[in-house]
């Protein structure tokens, strides 16, 4: 169908759904004169950036960087209300797979599912964006997260034509009405997934405590500045810290929030009294790498990292996560690093 026809469908969907997709914020990039490609609300298909990777992931849809858990007035608590609309997110296979990782932490770890995550996650539907090729630093084929079947819609754009595969009964009803009046034609559409990345690595079968004392980590101790960008751009990083605030106008009222936390930033393990573990950036890097490529799998059965490569894209020190894993594999194979 044409762009105009598809935008009519979007208008219809917007009555029931919030639609988020990669958008380009002009001039908002890190460096002057650069743009920021990130997630934002869209109203038409032309708003969607298909040919570039977002700096931040879509996780903020279900795990906002700053989320109010409840408000308090004197001694009463009130939980914030949520938008009743569903959420449609344009996402690439790695990012869709990343939500499975967040599900493990928020819904399966511990005695209770996280109610804040759950209420947003239940509304979530994915619009699959295909990758024609791997982007800079992508290594999804190495992490096995280059494919997915978990999507409600597949959208493919070719010149002025939009191709669409509907994989969701609810959406099909909604969309088919519009389609009836369209000058559309039927095509056989199968999702296409990237099968090769420039960056490739073998994830070591076994990463254990014996690697903890290896001098490899010292390199990161001197290179990493502890800015936390790798965590904040990661679609699978799920840590948070509680934060209470009170309102300046009325100190009797306030709210408890949770905010994104980073294991690479000082203070992540600090307790009252100042006691802290993992004081060097080398130890913090080790903790992060072990979590993404070993610890998480031991607990949930699959690796946490989805190979989106965003951490490498945003690191101000050009530290490469896949290169680190590669070195660990070399060490395991008896090579000297």
């Amino acid at each position, binding site marked *: 169908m044409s762009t105009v026809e598809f935008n009519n469908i979007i208008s219809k969907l917007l009555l029931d759904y919030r639609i988020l997709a990669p958008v380009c914020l002009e001039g908002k990039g890190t460096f002057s004169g650069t743009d920021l490609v990130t997630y934002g609300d869209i109203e038409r298909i032309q708003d969607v950036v298909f040919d570039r990777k977002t700096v931040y992931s879509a996780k903020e849809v279900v795990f906002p960087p700053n989320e109010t*858990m*409840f408000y*308090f007035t004197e*001694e009463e*608590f009130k*939980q914030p209300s949520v938008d009743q609309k569903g959420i449609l997110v344009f996402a690439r296979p790695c990012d869709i797979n990343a939500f499975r990782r967040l599900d493990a*932490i*928020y819904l399966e*770890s*511990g*005695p*209770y*599912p*996280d*109610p*804040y995550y*759950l*209420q947003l996650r239940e509304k979530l539907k994915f619009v699959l964006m295909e990758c024609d090729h791997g982007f800079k630093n992508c290594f999804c084929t190495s992490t096995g997260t280059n494919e997915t079947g978990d999507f409600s819609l597949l959208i493919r754009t070719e010149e002025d034509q939009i191709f669409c595969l509907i994989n969701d009964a609810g959406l099909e009803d909604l969309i088919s009405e519009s389609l009836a009046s369209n000058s559309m034609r039927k095509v056989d559409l199968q999702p296409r997934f990237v099968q090769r990345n420039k960056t490739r690595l073998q994830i070591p079968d076994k990463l254990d*405590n014996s690697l*903890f004392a290896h001098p490899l980590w010292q390199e990161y101790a001197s290179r990493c500045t502890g800015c936390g960008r790798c965590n904040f751009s990661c679609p699978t990083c*799920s*840590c*948070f*810290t*509680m*934060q*209470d*605030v*009170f309102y300046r106008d009325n*100190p009797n009222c*306030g709210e*408890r929030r*949770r905010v994104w*936390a980073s*294991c690479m930033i000082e203070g*992540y*393990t*600090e*307790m*009252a*009294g100042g*006691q802290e*573990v*993992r004081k060097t950036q080398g*130890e913090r890097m080790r*903790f992060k790498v*072990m*979590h993404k490529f*070993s*610890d*998480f799998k*031991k*607990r949930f059965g699959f690796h946490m990292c989805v190979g989106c490569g965003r951490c490498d894209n945003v690191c101000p020190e050009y530290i490469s996560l896949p290169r680190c894993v590669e070195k660990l594999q070399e060490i395991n194979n008896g090579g000297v690093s």
Partner: protein
Amino acid sequence: MAQNPYLPHKVKILSIKRQTKIDYTFKLESSIKPDNGQFVEVSLPKIGECPISVSDFGDGWIEMTIRRVGRVTNVLHDLKEGDGMFIRGPYGNGFPLQKYKNKHIVIAAGGTGLAPVKSVVNYFYDRLDLVKQLNLLTGFKSPEDVLFKDELEKWSKDFNVIVTVDQGNKDWTGDVGLITEYVKDMDFSNPEEVEVIVVGPPMMMKFTVQEFLKLGVPEENITVSFERKMCCGIGKCGHCKIDDTYVCLEGPVFNYTKAMELID
């Protein structure tokens, strides 16, 4: 929204006992039934939330011994009897009390580490016939830092209690020196029958455990309790994770065979 585990409930402060200048014991009206060694998340709206171990509990009450050491605890210390604080929990696991039956028990606690094991001591103090022998070794920085003085006095009448301080003063007539020195002096005829609990600052735990191992106590007979930053208590926030273990879920109490593999 489904049942929300993050929502705390208010509990009334029944009494406050000053143990030291910076450690107060709060007795709270609460119907929760914790295991010995579990913790709760304590909070004051607008200030914040922190994990605190339950030092003792009974029918309709729990007790926590809280050191004035941070943002939340500083304000907690300004509260008075009749005031309220907010809690959620209990979380984590407790000490394996069944395992200690008919055993020779040694509890080694350093400083505020005595708080999480206080209820264990009281449990066996009330049931001395359940165990072969009960020993309590406690170490504090100075005589001013000694916690639970009344209880220590009471306990020492019925079983072996050693209270040592790193540095004494002119009024101190008790023991002086590190806990490890007193472990060395222990004489176990059958170390296999000894069950040890070690709780305290990381260095104290490390060296105290080593002394018990030297005496021939098997690794699996040693239990420790960890202290970590925990924002949720329910395995989500990530701060307390070591390896694939969440201290808030699988801990804070660990058998030493597991604890020795947990490297931060």
